[in-house]
């Protein structure tokens, strides 16, 4: 018996280990991760971690003891380089071969690199790993002017953190607004105002035209709309692409992600996949989707573990996500693609409000700003398929939990 081999010890890979053991799986578990650290959590990297100057240990899912107690064999700092499906084995970058009964692919996604000249490419910072953030933190104290490229969650969270640390931050956003893919125009506009109010210089509809490095180590950037900016640090958060390389090379079906079914099984029945890397048909979506969130990675991993433990499980959780920017906690529940109506509860000016997104009269997503209780209740409403009327949604005197019970 060679047990379960897991490639990738991020949110999905770690959860798979924990749920397998909690589910009673007693066979061998082997984890491979190219990152040298014990498995750790990513969300704080762009949020509190830098701000609080926290120790790396605070990010770990578990201490080292856990893995020995649970008899999990760790291969850290080595990458899986090939999967041999016929012989059910994985080859590692250090030449080791590991056999598996079941293989779990949880490689996440790779950062999309900024297109800049080669001599500058090595100087651009990204925010994905502990190593990345350590490099940022080492330079940050000597930097005053920062340029952040990208108006998605991670770029904005980092911009907010840097502003709080007293840096002068410019953000170059290619699209017409912030977080355009993920939030409504109302919320995007609200956050734009907050970023500007906190001193971030946000420039929309622009990107880098050329960038050069000056003798003093600083960068000079010419933007596509003709502005010149100089900065000491250049940080990019322009998205990620699913890491499908191993899966594709092994002949597993992929299409913007490793394709999996409701049990998170790939086109090979003994190979599962979870997290940022997978594409799947969600019951709440009308076409295959890929979700980059902790919830998705964790819940898919739980389904895999349950399936390996012989239980009936299916991935159909309501997706949810959060982001912290300054004093604002944004929480998104559901899938909002195709919404045609937004009903708001609470005044925008109060900095605490909830947006109900409908398609027809069906509630499909709820976005909240500093309304965590509404977010929790909304997840329950969405899971139960309950759609409050537009009037009920807007009425602050009605508790959302109450709407669930009728």
């Amino acid at each position, binding site marked *: 018996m060679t047990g379960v081999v897991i490639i990738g010890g991020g949110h999905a890979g770690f959860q798979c280990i924990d749920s397998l053991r909690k589910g009673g799986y007693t066979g061998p578990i082997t984890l491979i991760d190219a990152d040298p650290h014990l498995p750790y959590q990513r969300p704080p990297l762009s949020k*509190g971690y830098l701000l609080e100057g926290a120790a790396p240990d*605070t990010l770990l*899912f578990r201490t080292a003891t856990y893995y020995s107690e649970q008899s999990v064999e760790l291969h850290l700092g080595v990458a899986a380089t090939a999967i041999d499906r016929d012989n059910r084995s994985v080859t590692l970058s250090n030449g080791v071969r590991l056999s598996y009964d079941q293989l779990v692919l949880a490689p996440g996604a790779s950062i999309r690199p900024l297109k800049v000249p080669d001599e500058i490419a090595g100087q651009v910072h990204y925010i994905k790993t502990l190593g990345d953030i350590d490099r940022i933190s080492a330079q940050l104290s000597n930097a005053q002017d920062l340029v952040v490229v990208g108006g998605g969650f991670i770029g904005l969270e980092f911009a907010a953190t840097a502003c709080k640390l007293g840096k002068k931050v410019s953000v170059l956003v290619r699209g017409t607004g912030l977080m355009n893919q993920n939030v409504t125009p109302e919320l995007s506009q609200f956050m734009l105002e907050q970023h500007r109010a906190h001193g971030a210089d946000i420039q929309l509809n622009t990107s880098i035209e050329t960038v050069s490095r000056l003798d003093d180590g600083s960068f000079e950037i010419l933007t596509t709309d003709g502005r010149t900016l100089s900065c000491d640090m250049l940080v990019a958060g322009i998205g990620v692409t699913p890491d499908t390389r191993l899966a594709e090379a092994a002949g597993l079906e992929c299409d913007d992600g490793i394709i999996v079914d409701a049990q998170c099984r790939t086109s090979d029945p003994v190979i599962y996949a979870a997290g940022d890397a997978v594409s799947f048909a969600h019951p709440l979506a009308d076409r295959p989707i890929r979700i980059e969130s902790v*919830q998705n990675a964790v819940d898919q991993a739980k389904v895999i573990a349950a399936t390996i433990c012989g239980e009936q499980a299916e991935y159909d959780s309501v997706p949810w996500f959060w982001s912290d920017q300054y004093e604002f906690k944004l929480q998104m529940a559901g899938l909002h693609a195709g919404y045609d109506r937004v009903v708001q509860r609470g005044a925008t000016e109060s900095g605490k409000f909830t947006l109900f997104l409908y398609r027809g009269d069906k509630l499909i997503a709820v976005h909240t700003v500093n*309304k*965590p*209780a509404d977010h*929790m209740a909304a997840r329950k409403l969405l899971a139960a398929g309950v759609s409050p009327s537009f009037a009920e949604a807007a009425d602050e005197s009605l508790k959302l*939990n109450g709407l669930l019970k009728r």
Partner: protein
Amino acid sequence: MPKVVYVDFQGNRNELEVANGMTLMQGAVMNGLDGIEGECSGSCACATCHCYVDEAYLDKLPEMSENEDELLDGTASERLGTSRLSCQIRMTDDLDGIVVQLPEEQ
């Protein structure tokens, strides 16, 4: 290192050393203790780190933020006067020996 006593729903006591600066949620989760989940990595966004704090220590805790207060209204187990989110409590020498009860459900 200061200690935290986590008492699970069945009444089992687990005494763990939790370094200053770590949150009570991290102390429990990193040591693989059941009963606290910490789904949102301590962002005060999920309420799966609910605990009941021994009354003797309530006054020594940092004040509750509005977000924490609201989230506690939606916890899976009943909110009591001693309810807090353990990710919002950072360990200090002052809190050495703190006893927290874990709820039935998170």
